[in-house]
């Protein structure tokens, strides 16, 4: 998208968000949409890692839950003002992600995924067992103050307010990523993803860009965690569990990563389905596990991939069979 188009699209999207927020009167519906938005941001983080690095994280809930915990603990200790707590959580987790990224992105293929699962679960176990610090399995409250960044908190917590805030964050994250990835950082990471060896042979130092993408993906997910913690005022180990990582991954797979907004689409579909399932949602883990399997086997490009193919004009000639190297970097 051209820059001028991008700005118009952003403004339009923000306006639509505001319109929906004030237009809808049903608190439940607004709340549902808000939650969907949080998951959309979460999924965007996971999707970014897959799209730019060709890597799959099975433990991104680490960043989602940890940001809530960091804020909750800092607020409980009354150590810093809430605004600083938010900053520390998001930036701190991004920095942390970068540091461990430097180590783990070097691990090839699926082993990387295994590590992310292990790390994520370790966070879950730590939170579940540290009764003193985190309230253990029961979780803890997040004591938000009466104003946040100058805005009265109770205004933000109104269904409409929460939706506008969350939606705006989503739109701005998409905008930010779109701009960032159009530039050199995007090309460099894509080249590294497609062919790491050749990337070095054209002069790219491949470790730093990949670690940076991992860090960014963690940061985006932690942002979603902040919003969720604000919305519910509560954080528990469930926010760190692999089933949550699995749900996010499912959204990414269902939505597809061909375009930047694919994972967000996946989140929307997930919530729609969950709403439709209603009472059966008791076994949602099994249902979504099955959905993941079905989509990955029969529709690997996801919904956004299918949509894009539908909207694109058909080629004049079929693409010639390409010999040479495998495409995605995700070797075993």
């Amino acid at each position, binding site marked *: 998208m051209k820059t001028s188009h991008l700005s118009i699209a952003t403004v339009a999207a923000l306006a639509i968000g505001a319109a929906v927020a004030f237009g809808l009167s049903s608190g439940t519906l607004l709340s549902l949409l808000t939650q969907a938005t949080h998951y959309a941001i979460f999924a965007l983080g996971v999707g970014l890692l897959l799209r730019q690095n060709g890597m799959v994280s099975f433990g991104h809930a680490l960043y989602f839950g940890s940001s809530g915990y960091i804020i909750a603990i800092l607020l409980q200790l009354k150590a810093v003002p809430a605004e600083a707590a938010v900053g520390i959580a998001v930036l701190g987790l991004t920095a942390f992600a970068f540091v461990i990224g430097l180590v783990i992105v070097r691990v090839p293929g699926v*082993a990387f995924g295994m590590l992310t*699962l292990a790390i994520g679960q370790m966070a879950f176990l730590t939170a579940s067992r540290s009764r003193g610090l985190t309230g253990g399995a029961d979780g803890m409250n997040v004591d938000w103050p009466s104003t946040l960044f100058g805005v009265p908190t109770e205004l933000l917590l109104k269904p409409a307010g929460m939706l506008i805030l969350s939606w705006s964050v989503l739109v701005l994250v998409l905008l930010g990523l779109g701009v960032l990835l159009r530039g050199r950082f995007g090309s460099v990471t894509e080249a590294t993803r497609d062919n790491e060896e050749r990337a070095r042979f054209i002069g790219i130092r491949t470790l730093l860009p990949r670690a940076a993408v991992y860090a960014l993906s963690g940061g985006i997910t932690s942002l979603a965690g902040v919003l969720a913690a604000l919305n519910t005022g509560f954080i528990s180990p469930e926010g760190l569990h692999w089933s949550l990582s699995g749900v996010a991954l499912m959204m990414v797979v269902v939505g597809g990563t061909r375009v930047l907004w694919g994972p967000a689409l996946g989140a929307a579909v997930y919530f729609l389905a969950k709403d439709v399932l209603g009472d059966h949602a008791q076994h949602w883990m099994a249902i979504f596990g099955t959905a993941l399997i079905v989509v990955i086997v029969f529709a690997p490009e996801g919904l956004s991939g299918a949509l894009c193919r539908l909207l694109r004009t058909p080629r004049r000639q079929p693409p010639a069979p390409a010999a040479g190297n495998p495409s995605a970097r995700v070797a075993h």
Partner: protein
Amino acid sequence: MFIHLFNGLVYGALLIIMCSGLALIYGLRRVVNFAHGSLYMLGAYIGYTVMLKTNFWVALAVAPAVMALFGVLLDRYGFRLLQNRDPLTVVLVTFGLLLVLEDFVVAVWGKTNLSVSTPAALAFSVDMFGHAVPAYRIAVIFVGAAVALGLTAWLRLSRAGLFVRSASTDPVTTAMQGVNTDRLSAFVVGLGCALAGLAGVVAAPFLSLSPSMSSDVIIDSFVVVVVGGLGSLAGAFIAAMVLGMVQALGTVWLPGSSVLLPFLLMIAVLIWKPAGFAGSRT
């Protein structure tokens, strides 16, 4: 101190049983079975149910057998059909399977912890270095050693083992030589799942059964397999023992944060050797 080291050995033995299954499946099918911990858990729960009606020894035979059957079906209708797809696809399928199995276990057996008693034949203590050591745990170590030695011997000395080793290195050529690689895969995956189930039954008397069993062990088994080098059986054995010992020492010296030790071990090894100890037999 001795007790902790001993328990480290016991846990290491358990990991050997479990992780050898994971390594075998990877070696032959190039699939990292994310559901392996869930299979371990399922094996334990099936064992529990069988034990309610009969006894431990029957469960020890039945649960792995059921898991072996499951493994054969998984290979035939899962891995085989997806073998030409991106390796990641299959991994995501196993992850989906993990979610389904977790839910299944809770649906059938509930969320509360269940316990299984030690079989009568082994419910005594042996005096070792002045400590009363449960005989059952000594048996576990023996089982772990038996699995390690048995698998190594089987791979090196038997015909089937030879086929497995060659199929792991080069499936196409092996198939061209007339080895029925599909049947071999089904066998190996079945064996791998059986091992996971066996580990579950073996663990049941001394670890309580809960839906979080799989997550407790999956971290460690992944660390073992990555640190040992993906696909290397010997590497997995060594790493399993190392991890068992590290955990044991951790409970002595750093009781609160011992759960983080596998993580730290893994990071330490990966900084030094990104492909793990033994490297992968690619």
